[in-house]
């Protein structure tokens, strides 16, 4: 796994990028760099990479199993040849400057030779005290590695705790114990550093009111995740620590340690806790149904991410999770039952309520750890008052020190998708300190030569992944394997735990070799996500990658039939039979390739588009920006200041000038995309450009969608009819242009969520709360006596924005909550505005006179445009017409259609800073694709049998891409490099002369046989 070290220097004389921190962010950054064929060293102070995410049970909003989602990335990490991983290593010194740093690394002794360790577990079994275990809740952990798919897959010894070294050595049959292992120090040259160390989670033991760390049945969110996790201490069974009983009533308390002013609290919002609490509650309800009552105590429900509001609605309406808007005062443990009484006050009731629960989960947020504080010192970067990295106002991945970049939670609290975006952005930035890759550099050879299996009888290996609980919890995997073994051609049938973990992959490889298998069936999750991974596995053992069939036992079986295990079992048997029958007919196939276009097309010339274009162009990529407006700038042109007070106009102008001056960028304004063809890496897009609408075609390998969104202007609350009802965007201008008018205002009312979080546009627009705070503070600055009322539903000033919310409150801005069924009314009489609303605290209706009503209207997708582009580019969209990324969690920048990348508000509403980050990320992701230099067209192409062809022209006529033609021999010919592989010709050929490789008729019929024969 670590043997890449030797080859890496030979391959490239370039300096490396040092990535510090092996969580999802660090892994993403490292993989992006490696995929862009940049050498990278990933260090982590722990003995295995994976970070926090590996400890989670499920991720929101898809409720996927975390391990399943992240593990492909982990083992991919081990395989990338440009990537070296050094666990148990930290940075102790950084000298030099961007492009030429010298980094001193210290690696702690592991006392185990990772090359020899087979992770058999004997040492842990016999010397449990000496083998490092997962921290936190985990004295009862069944395994002493952090999680089953650990990378590297090896143990680690705490030698200080070893009493009898000889005995320990004896236990290890692999002779992997290195008793005299010592700390080692290395100094390496690096060009840039990416810091993604994440943050620690707040330890609630310091609080005296919630009993964290004191009461058995009060756990933190992470501990709850561990309890629920199949790899956790209870193998996924929900139990109380006190009595092992399954709780009947669980409560979540939000903002524990966050958004507070008390001892131990931090003032900022941790950004993720609302979502994870909702997720935990939903998963609980999902698993145990009505048996468990779930309640969440919260102040503001901050579901501000893409489609998160829908998730919240589902939790409340479908999963019937009880939501109580309150910050509980305290928790008291009942001595005999160990149940917990929560005391809280309701908004509209003066009296305190008390309610008993079986278990309480404290939603704790992020804190910067002591190690990290030191690391900031070593790196020499500035930090903010809470010890998070201080970053550039318009580029959150830039630290105060050139050449050092950050991503993830250490920049500010954030969730996984945002971490992934920042990671890709940071990787893209880190590349700028490296020289541009010479265009003629050779591609890497990855795999050994293929074994010829033609003519051999099938020897099939069936490997079923239990996927922790996901499959094994529903199916009897062993019984399944027994059935598989009855097929005469099945030589091996085994269960492989987490099949996609490095360990299992290595196991499968070994079994293929040992048993001389020539066909493989994997029973696990969807081939959509995992087929490539197992195809690579086959290639590593010298088998053609098309000799594997993936049987979807999880997404299409255990997940949908979890409540009827018998049915799931019998369906699994059949699906496996289909796979086995099908794989017998699989043939070795050759992938076709074409050279890739090294141009990029950026659609949209706003801040996002320009940023992405500059990034690409700087890497020597010819970039076209297509913008329909007469000039660049987009929506940012109408924004004056950011909440941090930065001048947006100056920034945008700077970008425009840089773009205009760049040799590698061609700007096409007044341009409309009208047609599109080709394939990822070789696109051709037609554009009408200029006042005369001249037509031109652009060849490009990748496309970045940065089409932005539209400022919403719903005809509500008198917008458009009353002159003094304006939007925050208009207020933003007013503040710069007409201070006198601001000063003349006695009372200003702001209304939040206008046109958002409503049935016709159910999502949160994310930016409006901070926009309101920004403008409220500016009004106060210009005119301290102006009274400001903010009518809100939930204040969503996530992360450090919370500070501005607090500041506004301190300055006397009044916040009055409203609900959808009691929404405010704006009344205009004789040019005088009044706002009527209900005050929940007073429990009465009130009227506020207003000189100006400012509506926080947010952003909506430009339906017409996204639809037009989606049709041309064949891209999916969300229900509210934004573009839909490939995977909301792990691939927030990539589109499902390869070669398309998404950034900025075309993805979802976001701030300029966030848009810029995603722009960098998109550019970085685009580079990983372009770095491949050639397009793999796959092997799924139509093939004509000239002996059968009747030259009937049916294929010529039905092909949607005009590929087949009748050649000089008088028979149909389909060029593999042009064929898109849809199989329409094969479906219509009256002579059955055409077969679609990988989906040949006999393969499909064999699958049907597999389904019905037994």
């Amino acid at each position, binding site marked *: 796994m670590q043997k890449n070290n030797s080859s890496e220097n030979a391959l490239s004389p370039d300096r490396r990028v040092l990535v510090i921190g092996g969580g999802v962010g660090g892994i993403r950054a490292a993989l992006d760099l490696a995929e862009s064929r940049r050498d990278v060293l990933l260090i982590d102070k722990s003995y295995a990479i994976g970070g926090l995410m590996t400890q989670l049970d499920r991720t929101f909003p898809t409720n996927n199993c975390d391990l399943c989602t992240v593990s492909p990335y982990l083992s991919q990490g081990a395989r990338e040849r440009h990537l070296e991983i050094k666990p148990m290593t930290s940075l102790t010194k950084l000298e030099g400057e961007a492009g030429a740093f010298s980094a001193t690394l210290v690696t702690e002794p592991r006392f185990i030779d990772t090359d020899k360790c087979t992770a058999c577990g004997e040492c842990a079994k016999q010397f449990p005290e000496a083998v490092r275990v997962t921290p936190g809740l985990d004295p009862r952990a069944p395994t002493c590695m952090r999680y089953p798919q650990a990378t590297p897959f090896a143990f680690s010894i705490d030698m200080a705790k070893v009493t009898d070294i000889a005995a320990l050595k004896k236990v290890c049959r692999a002779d992997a114990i290195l008793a005299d292992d010592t700390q080692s120090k290395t100094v390496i040259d690096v060009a840039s550093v990416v810091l993604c160390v994440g943050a620690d989670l707040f330890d609630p033991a310091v609080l005296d009111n919630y009993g964290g760390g004191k009461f058995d049945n009060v756990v933190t969110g992470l501990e709850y995740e561990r309890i629920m996790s199949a790899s956790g201490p209870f193998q996924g069974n929900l139990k109380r620590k006190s009595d092992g009983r399954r709780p009947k009533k669980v409560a979540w308390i939000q903002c524990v340690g966050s958004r507070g002013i008390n001892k131990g609290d931090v003032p900022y919002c941790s950004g993720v806790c609302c979502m994870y609490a909702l997720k935990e509650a939903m998963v609980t309800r999902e698993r145990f149904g009505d048996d468990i009552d779930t309640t969440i105590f919260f102040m503001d429900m901050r579901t501000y991410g893409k489609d998160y509001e829908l998730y919240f609605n589902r939790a409340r309406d479908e999963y019937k999770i009880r939501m109580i808007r309150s910050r509980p005062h305290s928790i008291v443990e009942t001595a005999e039952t160990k149940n917990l009484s929560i005391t809280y006050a309701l908004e509209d009731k003066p009296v305190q309520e008390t309610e008993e629960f079986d278990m309480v989960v404290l939603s704790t947020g992020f804190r910067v750890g002591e190690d990290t504080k030191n690391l900031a010192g070593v790196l020499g970067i500035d930090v903010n008052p809470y010890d998070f990295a201080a970053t550039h106002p318009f580029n959150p991945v830039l630290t105060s020190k050139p050449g050092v970049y950050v991503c993830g939670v250490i920049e500010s609290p954030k969730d996984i998708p945002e971490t992934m975006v920042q990671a890709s952005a940071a990787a893209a930035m880190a590349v700028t300190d490296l020289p541009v890759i010479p265009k003629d550099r050779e591609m890497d050879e990855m795999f050994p030569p293929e074994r010829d299996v033609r003519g051999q009888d099938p020897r099939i290996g069936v490997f079923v992944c239990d996927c922790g609980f996901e499959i094994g919890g529903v199916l009897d995997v062993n019984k399944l394997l027994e059935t598989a073994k009855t097929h005469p051609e099945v030589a091996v049938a085994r269960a492989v735990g987490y099949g996609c973990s490095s360990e299992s992959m290595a196991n499968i490889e070994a079994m293929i070799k040992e048993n001389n298998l020539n066909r493989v069936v994997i029973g696990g999750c969807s081939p959509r996500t995992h087929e490539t991974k197992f195809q690579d596995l086959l290639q590593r053992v010298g088998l053609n990658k098309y000799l594997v069939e993936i049987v979807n036992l999880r997404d299409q079986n255990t997940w949908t039939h979890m409540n009827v295990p018998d049915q799931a079992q019998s369906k699994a048997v059949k699906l496996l039979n289909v796979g086995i029958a099908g794989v017998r007919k699989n043939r070795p196939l050759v992938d076709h390739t074409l050279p890739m276009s090294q141009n990029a097309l950026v659609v949209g010339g706003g801040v996002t588009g320009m940023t992405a274009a500059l990034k690409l162009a700087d890497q020597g990529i010819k970039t076209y920006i297509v913008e329909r407006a007469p000039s660049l700038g987009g929506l940012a042109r109408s924004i004056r200041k950011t909440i941090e007070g930065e001048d947006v106009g100056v920034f945008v102008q700077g970008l425009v000038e840089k773009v205009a001056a760049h040799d590698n960028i061609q700007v096409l304004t007044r341009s409309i995309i009208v047609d599109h063809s080709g394939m990822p890496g070789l696109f051709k897009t037609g554009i009408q450009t200029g006042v005369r609408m001249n037509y031109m075609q652009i060849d490009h390998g990748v496309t970045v969608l940065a089409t932005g969104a539209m400022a919403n202007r719903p005809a509500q609350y008198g917008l458009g009819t009353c002159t003094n009802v304006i939007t925050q965007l208009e207020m933003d201008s007013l503040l710069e242009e007409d201070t006198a008018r601001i000063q003349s205002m006695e009372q200003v009312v702001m209304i939040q969520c206008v046109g958002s979080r409503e049935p016709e546009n159910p999502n949160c627009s994310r930016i409006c709360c901070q926009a309101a705070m920004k403008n409220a503070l500016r009004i106060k600055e210009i005119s301290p006596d102006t009274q400001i009322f903010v009518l809100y539903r939930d204040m969503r000033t996530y992360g450090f924005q919370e500070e501005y919310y607090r500041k506004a409150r301190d300055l006397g801005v009044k916040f009055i909550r409203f609900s959808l069924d009691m929404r405010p009314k704006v009344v205009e009489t004789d040019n005088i505005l009044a706002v009527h609303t209900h005050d929940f605290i007073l429990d009465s209706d009130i009227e506020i006179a207003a000189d100006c009503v400012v509506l926080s209207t947010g952003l909506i997708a430009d339906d017409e445009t996204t639809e037009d582009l989606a049709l041309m580019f064949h891209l999916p969209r969300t229900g509210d017409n934004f573009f839909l990324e490939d995977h909301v969690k792990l691939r927030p920048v990539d589109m499902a259609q390869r070669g398309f990348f998404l950034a900025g508000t075309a993805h979802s509403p976001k701030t300029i800073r966030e848009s810029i980050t995603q722009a960098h990320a998109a550019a970085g992701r685009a580079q990983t694709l372009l770095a491949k230099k050639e397009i793999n067209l796959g092997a799924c192409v139509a093939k004509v049998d000239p002996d*059968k062809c*009747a*030259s*009937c*022209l*049916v294929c010529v*006529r*039905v092909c949607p891409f005009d590929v087949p033609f009748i050649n000089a021999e008088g028979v149909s010919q389909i060029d593999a490099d042009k064929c898109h592989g849809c199989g329409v010709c094969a479906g219509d*050929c*009256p*002579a*059955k*002369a055409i077969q679609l490789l990988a989906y040949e008729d006999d393969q499909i019929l064999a699958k049907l046989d597999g389904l019905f024969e037994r």
Partner: protein
Amino acid sequence: MITAEQKPIQEIIQYIAPYGRILLVGCNECVTVCAAGGRKEVGLLASALHLNSLKQGKTIDIKEITLERQCDPEYVEELAPYIDGADAVLSMACGCGVQTVAGRYKKSPVFPAVNTRFMGASLGQGVWAERCKGCGDCVLGITGGICPVARCSKHLLNGPCGGTSNGQCEISPDVDCAWRLIWERLKALGMENRYEDLMNAKDWRPGGAGGPGKIIREDLAQ
């Protein structure tokens, strides 16, 4: 090209009802091109017959084979190894093919599975139209390349009847009046004057009126 279309399946079922083992023979020529009797249609028909026997609770054994051409004895010879294993032959070729097979394997009942329709040209994917009657005495040279025998409902040789409306034939607005087409084409070619040449009563013998047609090329025939 000869065009054909599959017979109603019930008719086919009736033909083969008495038999248990069927040799289903396709042809890779015209009937493949017009999607009536190629390999694919053979497969579909076999499957349909299986479905039928399943419903009837009977057993049927169908051997599918598609010959390069059923109207050539050499290709038809390829059936020899299978003929004894079949109780009946179901041919998806045009009438020429069916007869060639029936002529070669005299002991086996041979049934047609398609109706041979006409000599047609392809107008596009999945559309064929009659273009030639095989009259044996081609007049296309004087009718602007449009055949009045095949394309006029009344085979009129001297011009349109009085039933043309809006340029379409009286039998259906979907059918072009052949003579309207001929006239337009003659005009486009500047051959308007050719129209008034009287076309004499046709000699129908070469097209079959003189008994079954036969061509013998002395230089080629053995």
